[in-house]
């Protein structure tokens, strides 16, 4: 979209390619283009900067706000103690790693964090979270591989209450959203938490791999059905994938994106910034 150009079919075709190639998806791309066409009567001359501003505003407009407005730091509502975050998502998305990074950020703020190793299924999943707990230096509640994840969640919350923890983060096993019994298990893990602390989990964070295509919409739909997802994290944005799926998901399900993963290290987590995210599509 370079130079002073006419907002004609060529410009819009090029825009369609940029957005679809960023995994925004056809439906959402057409919605964005319709909104731009409505604001700019066709064949009117616009400078590159003007068109880009309109484009960025329209995309940003589809990204839901968090309840606290623009996040600039890792905030926890003061009136929820412990504040319980349940982390869910398909296999390999980056849940366990994101939990390690998030625990580190909360600890930096002086908050007392407890981790719950409720992935009792996958090989060495508990050991993996243990390494992160040791790195961040926070307590972890764990049982043997093969134990009931709901039981681990229950124990974690009980222990957190006893330790007067500020934040609890529950790791769950990766699961594909079309597996009914696994989704039911997640619903059960959530329900069991309420037996220890009312109205928990306070947050259900769905972790999406930044390179996921349109299947992310179905993931958001099914995980929301099973656990009422309240926030999104998108990982591996340090690669070439753009993560465009979050635009349509955020718009359709009204779920804000809270965090992005930009690497495998403990500091490689960022609070989601709409402007920077939209800019990244055009770099």
């Amino acid at each position, binding site marked *: 979209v370079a130079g002073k150009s006419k907002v004609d079919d060529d410009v819009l075709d090029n825009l369609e*390619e940029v957005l*679809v*190639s*960023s*995994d925004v*998806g*056809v439906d959402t791309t057409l919605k964005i283009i319709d909104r731009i066409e409505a604001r700019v009567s066709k064949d009117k001359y616009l400078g590159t900067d003007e068109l880009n501003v309109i484009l960025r505003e329209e995309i940003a407009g589809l990204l839901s706000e968090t309840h606290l407005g623009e996040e600039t730091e890792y905030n926890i509502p003061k009136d929820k103690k412990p504040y319980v975050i349940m982390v869910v998502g*398909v*296999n*390999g*998305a*980056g849940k366990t790693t994101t939990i390690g990074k998030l625990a580190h950020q909360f600890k930096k703020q002086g908050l007392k964090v407890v981790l719950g190793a409720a992935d009792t*299924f*996958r*090989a*060495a999943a508990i*050991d*993996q979270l*243990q*390494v*992160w707990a040791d790195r961040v230096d926070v307590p972890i509640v764990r049982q043997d591989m093969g134990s009931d994840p709901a039981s681990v969640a229950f124990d974690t919350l009980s222990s957190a209450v006893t330790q007067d923890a500020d934040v609890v983060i529950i790791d769950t096993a990766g699961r*594909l*959203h*079309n*597996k009914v019994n696994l989704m039911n298990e997640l619903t059960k893990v959530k329900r069991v938490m309420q037996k220890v602390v009312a109205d928990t989990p306070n947050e259900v964070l769905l972790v999406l*791999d930044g*390179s*996921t*295509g*349109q*299947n*992310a919409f*179905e993931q958001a739909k099914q995980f929301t059905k099973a656990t009422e997802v309240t926030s999104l994290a998108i990982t*591996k944005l*340090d*690669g*070439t*994938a*753009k993560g465009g*799926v979050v635009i349509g998901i955020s718009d359709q399900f009204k779920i804000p994106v809270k965090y992005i993963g930009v690497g*495998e290290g403990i500091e490689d987590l960022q609070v989601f910034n709409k402007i920077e995210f939209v800019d990244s599509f055009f770099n």
Partner: protein
Amino acid sequence: NLSEKLDKALHVLKGHGQITEINVAETTKEVRRALLDADVNFKIAKEFTNKVKEKALGSDVLTTLQPGQLMVKIVKDELTALMGGETEGINLSGKPTIVLMSGLQGSGKTTFSGKLANFLKNKKSKNPLLVACDVYRPAAIDQLHVVGGQINVEVYSDKENNDPVAIAQAGIVQAKANGNDVVIIDTAGRLAVDEKMMAEISNIHKAIEPQETLFVVDAMTGQDAVNTAKAFNDILNFDGVILTKLDGDTRGGAAISIKSVVDKPIKFIGTGEKMEAIDVFHPSRMAERILG
């Protein structure tokens, strides 16, 4: 579904007998849309749709099928041909056969290493050795040991060594000494744009000269699949692709994108988390899945 959408677009044809330039435009738009919804790469979906358009033009639409169904058949046949050819197995030459796993973070390499070892042991009477060359990910070596334990396959690792090249070489030395006829090397997930990590896997590859280098890809990957497949292929010239998590409901268009851009066979698919969840790749089944 696509067949109904194409029927609608082509209804103008009924009684005319042939697919002409005018009425094919609407149908190719539907085909391209179906491919994009299935995560086929933007440029590749365009090229592919043009090829289908050429096949469709002038074809006799009223012989046996509904016009929409004929169009779908043309698309499906083209997709199958693109991904198809003979089902290729693992190159089992070499004493021992060395298999190198590669791919992005979380794609399913460690799990597939176990599945492949299990498959070769049970179906090809091999005596495989798994080698743990992921020295970065927390508990990655433990994970491979647990997997090895589940399938009763030995795992070579060296937690004191942080050089994956040295670990791979030592694993091969042990294999030769102990009579293992296949060595499967699990490696860390890495980004194609991470120069240091791409240099590492290139060094492992050069040092061990594997008979089989496999690129493991998550079937739900979107538009970025072409970028990573091309980058890994440029550096490793891999022999085959493994498509994982096909027990999900993703359409899997990344398979088309990858095959188009690197022209390497998809050898196996992952169909679950258990060690038995491995299957040979079937092009026609994949074509049907992509078309939804």
